[in-house]
């Protein structure tokens, strides 16, 4: 397994934003998760959903929708792990 940060982003208060990342090898098992870089103790800041597009026989595109659960902007890392 290996991990990385694919992008950094900011989501405005109480809004949802979608990112996509393309050209991933479709045979890899990849999972996506977010980590806020704006500390805000006391409650969850972000949640997210993942959707996937098979762009051709070898590659795929991941579409990650991130929701800011707070009333302040939240910066975050878009992280991935390749499981196999």
């Amino acid at each position, binding site marked *: 397994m290996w991990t990385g940060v694919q992008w950094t982003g900011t989501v405005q208060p109480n809004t949802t934003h979608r990112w996509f990342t393309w050209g991933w090898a479709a*045979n890899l*098992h990849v999972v996506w998760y977010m980590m806020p870089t704006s500390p805000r103790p006391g409650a969850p800041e972000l949640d997210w959903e993942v*959707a996937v597009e*098979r762009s051709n026989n*070898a590659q*795929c*595109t991941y*579409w990650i929708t991130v929701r800011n659960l707070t009333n302040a902007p939240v910066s975050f890392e878009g992280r991935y792990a390749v499981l196999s």
Partner: protein
Amino acid sequence: MTTVTLAQAHELFNLVNAKVCCPANPAAPCIPFLYPDDGCWGRAHEMCRLMIAAGAQPQKIWIQGGLKVSSSNKPNCLVTWGWHVAPTLQVSDGGPAQTYIVDPSLFDHPVPQATWVSVQGDPNPTLTPTGPEIFHLFYAPQRYDPTYALTNGVLANYRNELRLRAVSPAGPPPYPNCMLQPAGVQWFGTIEPNAQRRWFTFGWPANRHVFWTVMPLTPCPGGPQLSWKVAVERANANSATYWITVTNLTAETVRFEGRFNYLN
């Protein structure tokens, strides 16, 4: 003849492969790679056009013989041809140039010519290399197609064939009966347009940390196709059942793999 590096050959392959048609909605200018039965000369001419526009100098290779190719994109898993054609590139990373074939109907990356020949089931085929300008080597009235009018006609015809197959009872490619289940794949699924369906899988050791993902098998570039959610039931002291709900975000049937990984 100008050579390209292997990395450039992959880029050129990806350039043409990105034009793959969505099976149930194959709109121009997509290339019907997922209908391997016929139409290779149209696909090859269009691929050469795209690669030439990108600054490359592809050629073509024509193969004749009793050709039989395994394909997961045909319901009976077998394609038979009297001949076939695909673009070629001269590839060198410093050593002698080697001929590589760009043929997304058979491979997901550029392959050496010997590899391309070896999967076509005839140990003694006739190979004829030509320039990219030859549209149809075996039908003199259509030997050339400088305006791409014939190319567009062939592509339109086989886009229609692909669509007819995708909306028939066979459904869209690929066909799971033609595929081996890879390690880490629990099931092959099919989900109807704009539908949500739930699958369950039982008997998983509860002490294992299991992560579930879904990967579409039916290519359709342009937007997300599938999303999913996982729920879990503790069936007894030792085992768990996972319930995976898959949502098809598109107006086309999508085949997919349900994948798992152990994290511990």
